[in-house]
């Protein structure tokens, strides 16, 4: 249901302290790429202390752990008593999932698909019982594959991950946009939304308002959804025509989901 997943470094007190003021629907506290090897312990300690005493009540919190076996183990030990939504597993494929399972931790997992191996195993990964969602990691994938980032080159990985996630009924989260220009971000997010993504990662707090706005249902979509659900409730029927279109169960379910999301994020027109 979240629209924006904001990465914040786990070793920067100011960012941790302000994690709930950036208006992100979810934050991913980073122990991995944003934290140098020498600062990993500091990130674990700070995050542990902060979340123990100041867990923001209305924010989904995830922690991106390291994929290296020893670092992963230390990360998970630091997190074991914390009430977080789950962990984010980088370089996610069948091998890293096995590594995670071996740790016997029982966090829900969002996997980052950012390697060729991860991509060709994405359908299997999506079906894994501990997996709640998938993030496309385009920057690492770009590096591994040698492509240049564009809407064309991202089309296939975005589509494949999305189909895998939808088939498994889990979240599909679009890759971060790494430049800080707002129009580029809008364009990138619109491309993802057009494919069917409902959320996107942010790598800077200033990206959050744009992402939240772009992944918010429009007032027109909401009005249409309200009309569908109203007729469904009035007729108690799962199949009917409305404004020249045939409506059936998937359309009714989608309308209900859209209304739910609109309620949560305060779209005008929701009672």
């Amino acid at each position, binding site marked *: 249901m979240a629209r924006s997943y904001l990465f914040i470094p786990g070793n920067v007190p100011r960012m941790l302290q302000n994690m709930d*003021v950036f208006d992100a629907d979810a934050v991913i506290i980073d122990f991995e790429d944003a934290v140098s090897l020498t600062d990993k312990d500091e990130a674990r300690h700070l995050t542990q202390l902060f979340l123990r005493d*100041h867990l923001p009540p209305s924010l989904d919190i995830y922690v991106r752990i390291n994929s290296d076996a020893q670092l992963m183990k230390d990360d998970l030990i630091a997190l074991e008593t914390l009430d977080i939504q789950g962990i984010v597993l980088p370089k996610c494929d069948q091998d890293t999932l096995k590594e995670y399972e071996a740790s016997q931790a029982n966090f829900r997992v969002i996997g980052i698909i950012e390697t060729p191996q991860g991509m060709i195993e994405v359908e299997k990964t999506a079906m894994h019982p501990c997996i709640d969602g998938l993030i496309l990691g385009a920057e690492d994938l770009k590096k591994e594959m040698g492509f240049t980032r564009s809407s064309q080159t991202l089309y296939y990985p975005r589509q494949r991950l999305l189909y895998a996630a939808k088939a498994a009924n889990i979240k599909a989260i679009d890759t971060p946009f790494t430049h800080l220009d707002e129009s580029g971000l809008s364009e990138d997010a619109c491309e993802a939304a057009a494919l069917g993504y409902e959320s996107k990662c942010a790598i800077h707090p200033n990206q959050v308002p744009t992402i939240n706005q772009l992944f918010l249902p429009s007032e027109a979509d909401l009005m249409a959804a309200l009309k569908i659900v109203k007729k469904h409730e009035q007729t108690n029927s799962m199949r009917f025509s409305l404004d020249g279109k045939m409506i059936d169960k998937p359309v009714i379910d989608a309308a209900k989901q859209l209304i739910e999301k609109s309620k949560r994020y305060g779209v005008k027109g929701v009672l």
Partner: protein
Amino acid sequence: MIIHQSIKDLFKHLPLKDGLNISFHHHYRNGDVVLNAVLNELYTQDLKALNLYPSGIFPVHTSIVEGLKQHRINNITTNYMNGPVSAYLKAHGLPGELIMQTHGGRARAIEEKETVIDIAFIAVSAASKAGDGSGLLGQRPCGALGYAVADAQHARKVVLLTDTLVETIENPEIKGADVDHICLLETAGNTSQIASGTLSVTRDPVGLKIAREAMRVIKASGYFKQDVSFQSGAGSVSLAITQMFVDQLKQDHLTASFFTGGITGVHAQALKDGLVRKLYDVQCFDEAAIESLKNNPNHEPMSASLYASPSNEQRKIKALDIVILGASEIDLDFNVNVTSDSYHTIIGGSGGHQDTAEDAKLSIIVAPLIKARTPLIKHTLTSRTTPGKHIACLITERGIAVNDAHDPTLKTTLEAQGIQTLDIQSLMDKAHALTLVPAPFKRPKHRLGYIEGRRKDVLDTLYWGERDD
């Protein structure tokens, strides 16, 4: 009109004596050269017991520190101060007193003869042979000369200091009839240093969050409509709000009637784009504003008196709808400190803070609730710059508090538009949940001076020395 080739030559023709009251303006901000040049020459002539009336003191003004070390300065009256002079006063005090006035209060005091200036030293980027002065012509323009106008009109002797002499000046801000001497300098000031500091739109996410919240409040307040008038400072968050304000005008197909105060390139662009009809400019904050003042007839200079003097019935801020102001501390009654830090070092001053807060219909304070692990809201302020009764609301990254004592209807108005508000105590508690409750500080023992309200009322006492914690 007597034209002098040097300050030394000028001084031969001035009634110099110990105990002089001398004034300067701060339109060149940290690029000012005149104050240092004049003071250093006064020291050379062994003058003592000087009383300084600069409208603002910046880090460049190290000659004041030298004068204080040499025991040549008795009293300082100003509107704004930071840098080494602040540090020196905090450590050593002053033989006389430091009086921190407002911009409007300074103009009023000069016009009403409470402040008597013996000699006003006015830097201008160009002077005519008839003694007219401009901040727009010449090689090193500083823009509007609003803070110097009262000095020019009322000082016993008026000196223009410039690097450019021209035949005539059309519509000069400083009139030749008021001027006694012109002194030529190698340079009148450094234009490039006017914009030193924080004159850019913030990219800080907390600052932007505050700016977005402020814009929501402005829109919901009922004041954001055709012909709205607006003022904001040149701080990075204020500039972000100004940019959002202008963007919203455009989006809603509205035109503002005027913007007042210190003017920046953001304001100038809005005028150029037809989103505001007039800019009333007391001080240009950057070169884009100077260019606009030079070329756009709807960008008008104004004196500090016309800007903000409480005795001037024509003052522009009397018609001001919305003002955006900062705070380094605020208390539970919405009293604001922008004068001193918690060690009692002077870090700024009112400028137009109190003037605009009192006159504007909607006075909004924007500030981070927690800055460097220190909470904004205090039980007791280090010093009180602006009385809380003038403040409509406080906007932080963690919530909005409305001052019912100022406007009992604002909270209902905002909440009807879907804006949640908190009482200021709850906002303080939110900060303390993260920072814990700071231990109270004891103030230093020595009196430094006081903060003067715009109508000569004393708002608070200033202190120097180490805190007695």
